[in-house]
């Protein structure tokens, strides 16, 4: 019998502690695991190392962690959509490392796929290259960018079955699929929780084998 991984939000927060690293997907407000983020806020965890693409917008999603000063350091590609994040970064209240968006995806995938890093042409000749090894392959230069993994990944699913098989929808898939591969503990919030067998094997985008807990996401269509 497949394990039933559906738990309450409180139980799902068991592995979230001060100071851990967390992969949080989402592009601005789309595909962000907002229910789980609210769980972190409620639990009171702080000093978090966040890896995400951006910080949603002010007052939403990852922006809640920014607003409540729960983040010690953030690795991301863009914060421009959240005025509060920009403000805190400019004032020196929030430490940020910018990574090109495609490189961010590749580094996390390398972390989840057992690779030693990636060799990318992106960033050669820019400030992003500073301090990083440059490897020449067939006469062309590539940056060696290291893998990224985290203690926990928070995932926003459209549908998940009780054993954690996941389907994403439209551009809400974004970073969810890769982030789910690169953490020691993977928590999924799903808009719709279904029984095992209701999902077609070909529509599943993240295997239940990678998922540790499933939580009902708040249903909101705003």
């Amino acid at each position, binding site marked *: 019998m497949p394990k039933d991984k559906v738990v309450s939000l409180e139980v799902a927060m068991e592995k979230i502690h001060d100071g851990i690293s967390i992969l949080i997907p989402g*592009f*601005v*407000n*789309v*595909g962000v695991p907002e229910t789980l983020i609210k769980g972190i806020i409620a639990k009171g965890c702080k000093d978090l190392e966040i890896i995400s*693409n*951006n910080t949603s*917008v002010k007052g939403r999603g990852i922006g809640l962690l920014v607003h409540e000063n729960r983040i010690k350091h953030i690795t*991301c*590609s*863009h*914060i*421009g*959509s959240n005025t509060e994040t*920009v403000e805190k*970064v*400019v004032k020196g209240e929030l430490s*940020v490392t*910018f990574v*090109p*968006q*495609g*490189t961010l*995806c*590749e580094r*996390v*995938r390398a972390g989840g796929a057992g690779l030693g890093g990636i060799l*990318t*042409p*992106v*960033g*050669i*000749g*820019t*400030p*992003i290259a500073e301090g990083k090894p440059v490897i020449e392959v067939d006469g062309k230069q590539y940056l060696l960018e290291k893998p990224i993994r985290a203690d926990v990944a928070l995932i926003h699913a*459209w549908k998940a079955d009780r054993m954690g098989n996941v389907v*994403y*929808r*439209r*551009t*809400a*898939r*974004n*970073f*969810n*699929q*890769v982030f789910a591969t690169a953490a020691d503990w993977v928590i999924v919030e799903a808009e719709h929780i279904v029984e095992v067998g209701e999902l077609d094997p070909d529509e599943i*985008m993240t295997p239940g084998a990678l998922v540790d807990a499933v939580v009902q996401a708040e249903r909101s*269509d*705003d």
Partner: protein
Amino acid sequence: MAQPTELKGRDLIAYRTARFFNDGDVVNLGIGMPTKCLDYLPEGIDVWVDTENGAIGLAGPPKAGEPVDKDVCDAAGNPSTLRVGACCFDSFTSFGYIRGGHVDISVLGAYEVDQEGNLANWMVPGKTAAGMGGAMDLVAGAKKVIVMTEHCDKQGNPKILKKCKLPLTAAGEVDIIVTELCVLERTEEGLVLKELAPGVTVEEVLSKTDAELIIPEEIGSMI
């Protein structure tokens, strides 16, 4: 649509840029001015709009009254729609396509661009801290990179330079620059003045450009 000859400023830039598109091209249009190209697509030219956050076939914001799909957004995070034939994928796959040359044309704005094809459009030290988002990947990866920009900044200073001063987005990747005054093409020899806007002279372009320009005997018209 206005007659092409009446177009000015950003509209003229978008009109001319859209004429670099080939039928069936996958194009990635940066936030802001580049999206304007879709208003000026030549007849018979159908392009597929790539969005870095995971779709080919974006069809623009929902029309008034059309339902908003909370799971479909553009690269600015604003609600968008998909056209018939569109497909979605994750960000990792998306940037694989972008870096792998599966995006035919990337159109972006610039803070500065220079005669070596360098582009700076993501950071002004001490002023902005927005982050590069997907710009570095797009400029490094797309088959052709077109920069759309006003020829000078708001203070009237040239934006097309001998050498960029701001932190680069990518080195040596810009192929074409379209401004309200002219079209410049980057070649092995340097930046070539290919076309002029109606009524604009070579002298005017030179006076507003810091970069060295190659002036061929024949110069076309942007319209």
